[in-house]
Structure formats: structure tokens, C-alpha cells
């Protein structure tokens, strides 16, 4: 049942059509299973208002009703942007995140980070450069902030449907940005971040993934949180090697010694903790051909060979960890593969030295 009394139509006209459309499309994106959670997190529509909506209708009708409620509350562009941020926070895996590292000059003062100053400074820098830009902020856990930027130009209004996101943890030199399609604005974004956070330089790291939390764990070096203390009760030897050698005493593993060696080496390199989640590692090789055989067509080639090797997996590091125990690769694995979390990169350029 659609609600279209004359009064509502009058009120609807107060909200910009494009804004209403933005609300409609943003709310439509939200899966029904998450709808209540997202709306409650947004906390813009009251409990009473939400109760007036019949959530058993077709989704389009529900969205229509919700948009009308937004109009009643005189929702602004900022409210819509906030809802968009919340949706993205719930669906952060839908974006691919890059990592930037900032640095300070030598002898810089102690970082007395003021969140309000940061936000105001960041916004001003972007607004001064581009007359048309929408900047919205949402504070998050651990003194971090999610920033949403809708880019426009001198003459065009901001495109609300292709925003960039930045997640910044205060008093750290790192920022995580969703790869924006509008790459031309990247230098400006970098500048705004650097100046607002009182750094001098910004550099893009060779690290990229959909899994923002894993990127944070890698960059902040928080992925290995197991430490030996006198208070811990589990001893490393007691933990099973995962081989179940004793499952049946009639079965003897002929290569038990080798299996144990592989297990030990794997445990030393990968540890006992869950690996941070990455989907790929990419190696750009620019090397001259090396061969044991003398002669051959490629041996005399002066120019280096260029090739790209890409490893993909739903969970790359766990897959690498299981290679040697599964017998597919020798242990220890190549350091080029095992250095990924430690070096905080999954993009490599390998050249002859």
C-alpha cells in the first residue's frame, strides 16, 4: 500500500530530488537481513518511526517508506553520506584497499593530535582546491576516523555514487584508502591527509587487499600476538603436530622424520597464529635469463626478460602455509613468499642486482 497523501507530496518537494534518489539507492543497497541493524546504527530515524514501516512489503516499497521518513526528518546530504559510510563499514570487503605511509620531518614536535582540528583542516584543504566536494566523517574504534569523499570539479557537482573512503588511525603514519576510480584526485587526497595529520610526506605502500582488518594487522604488526610467558599453560610440544600419527598404531609413517621437520620449519616461519588475509601476491620480474646450459637462444639475450607472476587465493597466506605440509612444496618456502607480512608488501619488483 503506497502512502501518497497530498501533504506528503508537498513535504517531499522540500527535499532535493537528487538527494531523495541518493537516499533511495543507498537504502536499496542494504540487504534486508541487515536493514534494522544498519538503520539502528545510523540512529537517524527514531524507534517510533521505524515501527510505522511495514517490513513485510516488497523491498522497493519499504525503501519508499523509509525515504519518506527521511524527508520528514529533513535529512541532509551529510546524513545520507553517513548512512553510506555505515553501509561501507558493514561491507568493507566490497572495496579494494590501498595503504599509504606518511613520514614526518626530522626533529618534529610530539604529535598532539586533535581530531576536530584534523577534520576541519582536511575538509578545508579539499574544499579550497575543488569547489565541489562532499567530505563526511564518522568516528570509529581505537581513535580512528572513516572519511567519505565525493569528488566534483570546479563546474560539476560531486558524484555521490563514486566516493573514495579513507580510514585513518590517529597518531599513526598510516592511512587506508579505497581504490577510487577517479585516480586524478589521489595527489590532492594525499596532500590533505599529510597536512591535516601534520606529516611531511606520503608514499603509497606496495600492499593491497580487500580485507581492511588484515591490512591493519599487517601494517601495525599485530598479526602475531602469541607470546611465551610463565603464565601460559600450553607447552609447544604438547600441541599436536596435526599429523595424527598415532591414529592407528598399525600404520607407520615411513617419512615421519621428514614430516616432523617440515612441520617444525613451517611453524617457525608462519607461527601458530591465524594468518592475515590477502587474496594475491604479485611479482614483476625483470631479470636476465640464467641457465646452467651453455649457449641456447635466451642465454645470449642482453635485455632482461619481463614477466609477471601472480599468486591468487581466497586466503593466500594460509594456502602458502599449507603447501609444505601437504607435500606440494619443499620446506622452507622461498623467502619471496614468506616475507609478505613481515615486509608489508604483496607487490614485488625483482631485478638483477
Amino acid at each position, binding site marked *: 500500500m503506497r502512502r501518497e497523501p497530498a501533504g506528503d507530496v508537498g513535504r517531499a518537494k522540500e527535499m532535493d530530488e537528487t538527494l531523495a534518489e541518493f537516499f533511495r539507492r543507498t537504502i536499496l543497497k542494504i540487504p534486508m537481513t541487515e536493514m534494522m541493524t544498519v538503520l539502528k546504527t545510523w540512529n537517524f530515524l527514531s524507534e517510533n518511526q521505524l515501527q510505522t514501516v511495514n517490513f513485510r512489503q516488497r523491498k522497493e516499497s519499504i525503501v519508499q517508506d523509509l525515504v519518506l521518513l527521511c524527508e520528514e526528518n529533513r535529512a541532509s546530504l551529510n546524513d545520507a553520506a553517513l548512512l553510506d559510510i555505515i553501509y561501507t563499514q558493514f561491507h568493507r570487503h566490497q572495496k579494494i584497499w590501498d595503504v599509504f605511509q606518511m613520514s614526518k620531518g626530522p626533529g618534529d614536535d*610530539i604529535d598532539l593530535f*586533535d581530531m576536530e582540528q584534523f577534520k576541519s583542516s582536511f575538509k578545508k584543504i579539499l574544499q579550497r582546491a575543488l569547489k565541489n566536494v562532499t567530505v563526511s566523517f564518522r568516528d570509529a574504534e581505537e*581513535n580512528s576516523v572513516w572519511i567519505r569523499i565525493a569528488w566534483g570539479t570546479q563546474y560539476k557537482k560531486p558524484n555521490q555514487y563514486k566516493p573514495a573512503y579513507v580510514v585513518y588511525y*590517529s597518531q*599513526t603514519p598510516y592511512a587506508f584508502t579505497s581504490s577510487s576510480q577517479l585516480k586524478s584526485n589521489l595527489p590532492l587526497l594525499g596532500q590533505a591527509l599529510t597536512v591535516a595529520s601534520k606529516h611531511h610526506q606520503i608514499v603509497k605502500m606496495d600492499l593491497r587487499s580487500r580485507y581492511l582488518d588484515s591490512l591493519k594487522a599487517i601494517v601495525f604488526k*599485530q598479526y602475531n600476538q602469541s607470546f611465551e*610467558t*610463565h603464565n601460559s599453560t600450553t607447552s609447544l610440544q604438547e600441541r599436536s603436530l596435526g599429523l595424527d600419527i598415532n591414529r592407528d598404531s598399525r600404520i607407520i609413517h615411513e617419512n615421519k622424520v621428514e614430516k616432523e621437520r617440515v612441520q617444525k620449519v613451517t611453524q617457525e616461519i608462519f607461527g601458530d597464529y591465524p594468518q592475515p588475509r590477502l587474496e594475491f601476491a604479485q611479482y614483476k620480474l625483470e631479470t636476465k635469463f640464467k641457465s646452467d646450459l651453455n649457449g641456447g637462444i635466451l642465454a645470449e639475450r642482453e635485455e632482461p626478460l619481463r614477466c609477471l607472476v601472480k599468486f591468487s587465493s581466497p586466503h593466500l597466506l594460509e594456502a602458502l602455509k599449507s603447501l609444505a605440509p601437504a607435500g606440494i612444496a619443499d620446506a622452507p618456502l622461498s623467502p619471496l613468499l614468506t616475507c609478505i607480512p613481515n615486509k608489508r608488501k604483496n607487490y614485488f619488483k625483482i631485478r638483477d642486482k
Partner: protein
Amino acid sequence: MELANTLKQDGESRGGVLAHLERLETQVSKFHKKLEEPQDAQALEARIHELERLRDNLRAEVKQRQARVKASTANVEPDQTLEISEQEILERKQENVKAILQAYRFTGISGKLTSRGVCVCISTAFEGNLLDSYFVDLVMEKPLWIHHHSVPVFIPLEEISAKYLQTNTQRFLFVLCEYLNAYSGRKYQADRLQSDFAAFLVGPLQRNSLCNLLSFTYKVKLEGQSFPFCARLLYKDLTTTLPTDVTVTSQGMEALPSTWEEQRADHENLFFTKPLHQVFTSFARKGEKLDISPLS
């Protein structure tokens, strides 16, 4: 005599009366046969002596065995209790040492040897409250390096290790300890303010990761009136838990009446000298003493 003996030696009665009669018959015939043999008195005497000796030996053996059994049952308990107490002593010693090693945490810096070096544990505390612990896993190689750690990313660990780790490891640990304890202490104060004194705050407490910039608006009552003050605390020295800069201003820009100006200056001084939550505790106490009228 022999007849009586043979009867006794038979032991149990087998069969019925007829069987018994048969036995008596055979015994009589045996007896007659023996009577026909030449009666050798000496041989008989010797035989008697033999039998007596055998009986004595058997009796002695029985006595010995009985004695041994008694002795062994008596000895079993003392032997076992000896063993238990030795093991118990060792176990208690081991538990004691383990407990001491665990208690080392309370000294602030403790550690455990690992296969590649040592895992240092820095346990922070503030005003007698045990707070978070942080770990640094060191690899004992030349050069010394950190394998992994749980120090928050905003603590300048790289700077501190660049300065001291190689040249003076002890200094490295102490400096890191200072930074972490100060951070823990500042965090504790900010957390206490937010949780225990939320009633005094107007709006949220603004803070950052290092808890070295705190900005908040609070209301204090004086003479039945409550007045909002804006406080901004800066902790420029990351190794301290008291602020280096304090500004308390009135929310509006109007000139304050003199009593309130006094209060403002007084509060500024308090924030400089006392931990944050203690300042608010004293506000709460003052409010209890002076204020009779209900909360405005």
C-alpha cells in the same frame, strides 16, 4: 600306633561304610606284613628321630614365614610414605618457583627465555592499579632484533629501539617501560573520567590514541549555580602522566564574575598537579559539602 596314624593321615572319608571297611582291611593286611618284618629297634628309633627333626624343621619354617609376613606388612607403610614425601617436596618446590616466576610480573619488567632469545613482558601500573601488559620478543643475535611485539603502533618503538636497542639494551627496556607506563596512566585517567564522572561532563570527552590531548566541557556547582568550563589538557612529555599545558576557559566569552574567575584559575592549577580523576573526585566531594539544593 601306626594304625591310628594311618587313619589320621587319610584325612577325609572317601565313599561310605563299605569303603571304610575296605580300608580297614587293607590296613590290617599291611600291618600284618610289617609285623612279619624283623623289628629293628634301632631303625625305628632312627626313624623316629628323623621324623622329629622333620617336624621341628617344618615348625621352624612356619614360624619364620609368619614372622616375615608380619615384618613385611609392617614395613610397607613406612617405605611408601617416605617416597611420597620426597615427591611432594619436589612438586611443592617446583610450584613455588613457577609462582615466583609468574609473580615477577609485579615488578614491572619480567621475561621468559625462548628458544631464540627472550620474551620480555612490561606490565604497566598506575596508582597501585595493575594495567595492561605489553610484550617484546627479542632475538639474541648480533645485531639484536625484535621478532614481534604487542606495543601499540602509536608508541615510538622504532625510535626508541634505534637509539638504544643495540648499544644499551637495559636502557631500551627502561625507556620503553617509561613510555608504556605513562601511556597506560594517561589512558586510565581518561577512562576513569568517562566512566565514573560522566555526570560532570557536557558532551563527549575528546581524546586521541596516545591520550596526550584531552578536551572536554564540564560543569561544577558553586553556591547553587552550575557553570560550564572548557578544559584542554596537553601532555607534551610522553613519559609523564600529568599534563604540561592546561587551559580552562568559560564556555561563553563573557568576563567571569570574580568568584568564578577564582574557580577557573583554581581548576587550572588542580589539573596541573593532580591526576584527572582525582580532580573530579574532589569536585564531587566539594559538591557534596557545599550544595544542598538539588542538581540544576
